[in-house]
């Protein structure tokens, strides 16, 4: 088990202290949180949605079928491109510049990438594929390099000393890491399908676009059909995915995407974007030696900070903090639902279904649905993030709890006694580690849901995009990356301080 409270020089963290600090931070932020229910008639919306799910209408299946195909197409193409790039980068990941490129690529969310790419390539296949492939390549590069490092070194040491690096890699390194690589690619494909669906909310022709359209028309039965299609596609991935058909999937993805109409793109768009559009306005074509240039730049920076970055960061932190607390509460309350010794056989089966739905519904889609029902405020975002992340952690803790039950003494208690006296105390370390691990992800997601209208960083980024102030977009993205990096660093230090720094590989795969 993980040791309790390791003293670090000068500063002493305890698990209780960490939890108390997070709760206090949440309580302090609560007055700043806008939790109003502003929807006109939330109950009617909710019952409408429920009826739609129970009596789905597949009449629009033709359009939905195409959206389904493109959702899969974007996901498969992007994961193929991202994984190939990541695999090519992985052996060089220890080299500073490559690592820096990977970190930069993955610290910007798919949706933000899509917003940027749209400025150059419009709503097109290139935008959709690259928006997912770019951050994924950064993630694949890092994860694959870890797998390669962890692979058995002995076969490599057996080779003659004059063996060239490429042969040594292909024969004695890559095959050894391949099982993990495959598992991870499959997991990422699942993430890719979610990302691809969500890209529809900003205009790409995937399921998210259909969902948005039918929601706005109040056609809940078609909305129900879309959600059912989506869950079926994600839930059955392990049945329809076979590695030996990988080439076939990629070919089908290319065919599906070739049917997507892409607007013509003027030449030089990328060049203009990089050299002019995202350059801070006061610096464009200005004299870099003049004092006035930099004074104007300072004013520009201050205006962005006061009008957008600082309020956006505060709102992002508030949403994330409250979502994190909700995540923790939900995870602790829900994980026993899938432990048969606590909830019984029927109860655990039902618990599994509930957690699968919570896990596989992308937080952005959940936030969108809650927003339609409850009206714009921080509440839908907090609920969506808490529910999604809580379900993920509950699922992982539940599995650990199930494994624990097999090793318990014969006369161990059952039901709630087991939960309180055996499971929670034993799993508490993992619980904290997982929450801290998710914290950084929740920050990232809190920024993103701003694009739905909650005033987090994404809201200001979306506004700046709409006003075509791409220099401001770039500045706000940098702010987002910095906040995420700060929280990532904080999370890692706290995990190290309470001795919960390392998760098992399977936990990492699911917790990412």
């Amino acid at each position, binding site marked *: 088990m993980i040791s309790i409270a390791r003293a670090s020089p000068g500063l002493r963290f305890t698990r209780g202290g960490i939890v108390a600090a997070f709760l206090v931070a949440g309580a302090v932020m609560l007055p700043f949180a806008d939790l109003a229910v502003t929807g006109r008639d939330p109950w009617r919306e909710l019952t409408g949605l429920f009826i739609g799910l129970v009596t789905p209408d597949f009449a629009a299946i033709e359009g939905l079928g195409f959206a389904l195909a493109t959702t899969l197409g974007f996901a498969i193409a992007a994961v193929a491109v991202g994984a190939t790039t990541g695999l090519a980068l992985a052996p060089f990941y220890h080299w500073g510049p490559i690592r820096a490129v990977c970190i930069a690529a993955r610290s910007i969310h798919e949706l933000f990438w899509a917003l940027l790419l749209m400025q150059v390539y419009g709503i097109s296949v290139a935008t959709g594929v690259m928006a997912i492939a770019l951050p994924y390549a950064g993630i694949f590069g890092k994860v694959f390099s870890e797998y390669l490092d962890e692979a*058995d070194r*002995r*076969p490599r*040491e*057996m*080779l*003659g*000393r*004059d*063996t*060239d*690096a*490429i*042969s*040594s890699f*292909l*024969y*004695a390194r890559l*095959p*050894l890491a*391949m*099982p993990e690589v495959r598992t991870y690619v499959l997991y990422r494909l699942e993430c890719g399908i979610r990302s691809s669906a969500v890209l529809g909310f900003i205009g790409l022709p995937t399921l998210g676009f259909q969902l948005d359209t039918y929601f706005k028309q109040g056609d809940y039965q078609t909305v129900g059909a879309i959600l059912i299609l989506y869950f079926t596609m994600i839930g059955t991935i392990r049945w329809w995915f076979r590695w030996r058909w990988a080439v076939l999937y990629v070919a089908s993805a290319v065919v599906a995407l070739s049917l997507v109409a892409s607007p013509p793109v003027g030449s030089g768009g990328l060049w203009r974007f990089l050299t002019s559009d995202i350059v801070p306005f006061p610096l464009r074509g200005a004299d870099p030696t003049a004092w006035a240039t930099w004074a104007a730049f300072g004013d520009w920076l201050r205006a962005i900070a006061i009008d957008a970055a600082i309020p956006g960061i505060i709102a992002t932190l508030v949403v994330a903090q409250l979502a994190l607390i909700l995540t923790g509460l939900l995870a602790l309350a829900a994980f026993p639902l899938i432990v048969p010794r606590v909830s019984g056989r029927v109860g655990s089966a039902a618990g599994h279904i509930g957690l699968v739905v919570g896990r596989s519904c992308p937080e952005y889609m959940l936030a969108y649905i809650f927003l339609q029902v409850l009206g714009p405020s921080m509440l839908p975002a907090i609920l969506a993030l808490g529910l999604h992340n809580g379900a993920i952690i509950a699922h992982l803790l539940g599995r650990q709890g199930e494994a624990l039950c097999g090793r318990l003494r014969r006369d161990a208690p059952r039901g709630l006694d087991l939960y309180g006296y055996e499971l929670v105390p034993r799993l508490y370390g993992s619980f904290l580690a997982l929450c801290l691990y998710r914290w950084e992800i929740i920050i990232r997601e809190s920024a993103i849901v701003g694009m739905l209208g909650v005033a987090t960083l994404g809201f200001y980024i979306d506004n700046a995009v709409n006003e075509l102030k791409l220099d401001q977009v770039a500045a706000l993205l940098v702010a987002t990356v910095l906040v995420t990096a700060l929280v990532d660093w904080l999370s890692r230090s706290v995990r190290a301080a309470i001795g919960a720094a390392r998760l098992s590989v399977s936990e990492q795969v699911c917790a990412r």
Partner: protein
Amino acid sequence: MTGSLVLSRQALGYGDKVVLADVTFSLAPGERVVLLGRSGAGKSTLLNAVYRSIEREGRAIALVPQDHALVPQLSVHHNVYMGRLDRHGALYNLANLAWPWRVERDAVGAVLDLVGLAAEARRPVEALSGGQKQRTALARALFRGGDVLIADEPVTAVDPVQAARLMGVVRQRFATSVMALHDVDLALAHATRIVGIAQGRFVIDAPVADVSRRAIDDLYRAR
């Protein structure tokens, strides 16, 4: 002592632990040295040191490590072919990985015939039994070839008849070898020289004809 000096007054071990305190070991061409001793006596430590020393001299040497060091995901053919990766360029090796060359299939196949694995060439190593894996590791060393073979318990997982036959194959292919074996009869039949290790030093180091059965039995007796 004739032969070239391989190790001179060295302390061998792993980490901070010294297993063999003061080792001097030489090896003459044509010698077949067998190391005997209880498990943990330091046979593997000595073999590793001998391997490193000879390899450093740049001589052609093949190795069968105790843990095989195979790539479970690759086929038997590819694992055996890995013995000669350094003889070809990356492109040739890459092509052979995707679709083995005819000439390499035949060359590897000939070696697999010797160890009785010809029928398993295409199977991934992870699907093999323990004995088959061990024979794959031996086949890789045979395919690699060279002046000297270093082998750490290369035939533990095969039956006695097959073990004796495989040792015959090894004698044909490698004039000189250093090997750890736990089967004393097999050792006496195969070796030209016996090195007995106990309590961190060489208790025996003599031509096989000069070593008594009793001296060997003493090696395995509890302290």
